[in-house]
């Protein structure tokens, strides 16, 4: 055994058998101890802090040699109680909380929540067209940035270091667009119930089109490096197999189920925010493995770029249109501008509400202090986030605060399939399988 008593390294007996802790340098003594044990099975804890488990995910593996016989996921290490917190904020403030659930796709969280609130309010058709186009454009950019992190970190975990740098380089270009339009790189709280927080600044369309051209050119770096690469294919083909029957009963959506050949994409089958007006393809693969999901994500990038180009074309003709619903009792006052001391209400708006329109002043005051009231009822609004179907079950009791908001997070349901995908494979394959599910622990634990 170890030469000194390390509080973390003594072996102890539990109901499941002997538990060993390895601290380094004592591998030979550990192996002797295990050798004396009767069983061959070893339970390994890939703890919540681990470079390859995509965030604070705990994997408890039961190993027989290098083969995994059982995989159990331990989650909850990032549980923030966002859903309960929202019950104490008004409907608009909840957007800022909800945005931080799945932190790689913040705009999708906001969109699912706001679509739910709008459905409850009954103003889904009153959201102005420009707001819908902006929402679609921002969501598709977010899809690109989310897939970049998925590809980059997935490749990093499997040992490929360059894709990480390439992907983050492209992601910075998308984050530049986010910063230009909404003011923040991440967690923007830009999509609000009724529309978007503020109008596009001048020059957006040109900047967007230039970025699209740039990205289309740079995505080839990743493709040339990984697609068809024999080392990459050896590590990803046949790994993490989950067929259609398994996927449907486990409630798995997104690239994982599209890799089984089923073109299940909510943007096509139950369109929202005007997605029926855009031309794009649903990318599928039919290999049901990690390589198929990887190819889907790479090809979805191109489809997102197509949608963004169509959005930019539409925006050219929607110059100067409203970005918030017309009903002043719901529309968050969205006239912001950069002043001497930073961003705040534009002076024109202040002049209007203080000088000319008493009603605007009252609306502004009531909206900011009390918030709008949403008629009682419950609604489930689902959108297609980069990881699958993101649904918001929004329940209102007629007040200014949400009564209950539950998010059906795709990562939560997708992560359940880890056991089905990984049992029977090698330890190294678990990493690839989990990376291909692309779980975001903020969404899993909320």
């Amino acid at each position: 055994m170890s030469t000194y008593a390390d509080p973390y390294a003594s072996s102890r007996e539990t109901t499941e058998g002997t538990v060993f802790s390895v601290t380094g340098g004592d591998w030979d003594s550990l192996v002797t101890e295990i050798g004396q044990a009767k069983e061959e099975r070893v339970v390994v804890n890939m703890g919540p802090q681990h470079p390859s488990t995509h965030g604070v995910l705990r994997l408890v593996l039961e190993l027989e040699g290098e083969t995994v016989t059982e995989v159990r996921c331990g989650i909850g290490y990032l549980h923030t109680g966002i859903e309960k917190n929202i019950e104490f904020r008004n409907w608009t403030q909840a957007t800022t909380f909800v945005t931080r659930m799945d932190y790689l796709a913040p705009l999708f969280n906001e969109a699912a929540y706001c679509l739910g609130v709008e459905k409850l309010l009954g103003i889904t058709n009153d959201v102005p067209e420009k707001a819908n186009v902006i929402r679609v454009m921002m969501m598709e950019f977010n899809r690109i940035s989310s897939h970049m992190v998925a590809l980059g970190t997935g490749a990093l975990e499997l040992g490929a270091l360059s894709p990480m740098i390439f992907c983050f380089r492209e992601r910075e270009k998308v984050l530049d667009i986010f910063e230009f339009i909404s003011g923040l790189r991440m967690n923007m709280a830009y999509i609000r119930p009724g529309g978007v927080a503020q109008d596009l600044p001048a020059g957006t369309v040109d900047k967007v089109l230039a970025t699209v051209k740039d990205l289309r050119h740079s995505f080839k770096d990743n493709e040339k490096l990984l697609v068809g690469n024999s080392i990459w294919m050896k590590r990803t083909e046949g790994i993490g197999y989950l067929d259609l029957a398994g996927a449907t009963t486990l409630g798995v959506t997104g690239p994982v189920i599209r890799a089984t050949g089923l073109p299940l994409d909510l943007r096509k089958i139950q369109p929202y925010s005007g997605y029926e007006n855009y031309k794009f393809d649903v990318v599928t693969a039919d290999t049901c493995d990690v390589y198929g999901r990887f190819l889907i994500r790479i090809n979805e990038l191109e489809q997102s770029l197509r949608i963004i180009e169509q959005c930019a074309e539409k925006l050219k003709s929607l110059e100067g249109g409203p970005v918030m619903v017309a009903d002043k009792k719901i529309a968050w006052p969205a006239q912001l501008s950069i002043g001497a001391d930073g961003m705040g209400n534009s002076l024109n708006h202040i002049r209007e509400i203080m000088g000319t329109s008493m009603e605007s002043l009252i609306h502004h005051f009531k909206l900011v202090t009390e918030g709008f009231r949403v008629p009682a009822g419950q609604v489930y609004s689902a959108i297609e986030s980069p990881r699958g179907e993101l649904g918001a079950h929004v329940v209102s009791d007629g007040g200014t605060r949400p009564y209950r908001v539950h998010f059906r997070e795709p990562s939560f349901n997708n992560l359940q399939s880890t056991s089905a995908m990984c049992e029977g494979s090698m330890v190294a394959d678990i990493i690839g399988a989990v990376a291909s599910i692309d779980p975001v622990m903020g969404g899993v634990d909320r």
Partner: protein
Amino acid sequence: MSQDQQGMFGAAGTGDTSGYGGLVRSAASTGSTERPFGGYFDQVTDDLERAYTDFADAIERVVVDRGELTLHIKRERLVEVSLILRDKLKFEMNMGVSGVHYPEDTNRELHAVYHLLSITNNQRIRLEVSVADTDPHIPSLVEVWAGSNWNERETFDMFGIIFDGHPGLTRILMPDDWQGHPQRKDYALGGIGVEYKGAVTPPPSDRRTYK
């Protein structure tokens, strides 16, 4: 659900002299919707009635609201109805279980809401089961849709609804030895007041806000 909201401001006992504290606002209770439901809801309800003879007994209420169909089911019939929905009506996917706690709804405080998706027919419906606080048992749907496993664990963790027949009903989001079920309405938010230079900003649950 019929909720009576008393007063306009959130935190009580704050010396509110505006008079709005006496406001009583009651949300209209939703009874069963009348036929025809519209859209594909009629077809789905008819198919279910045809396939499941005990429909009138099992389904307490059918509500069509804001373009969505909700079937309120008795908990004893949940598994049978789910099997029929899955096999005959082709609702292959269960999107998850969502719990809601209505403390004023005596004997029906805890609701478990299931959202089902039919990929073949591109339809969505919602099942809602209500149980009392004193007897929070609901049969588990893990045998019908395997993906309900973690969702039911989460609903147990957050609300205390016990799913009978679940292979391993333990806490999933909170630490294993946590006491209480956090998302119930009678569980405090747990925030602490922020003290700075003599003033205390109360946590969001204790502030004077509008209800």
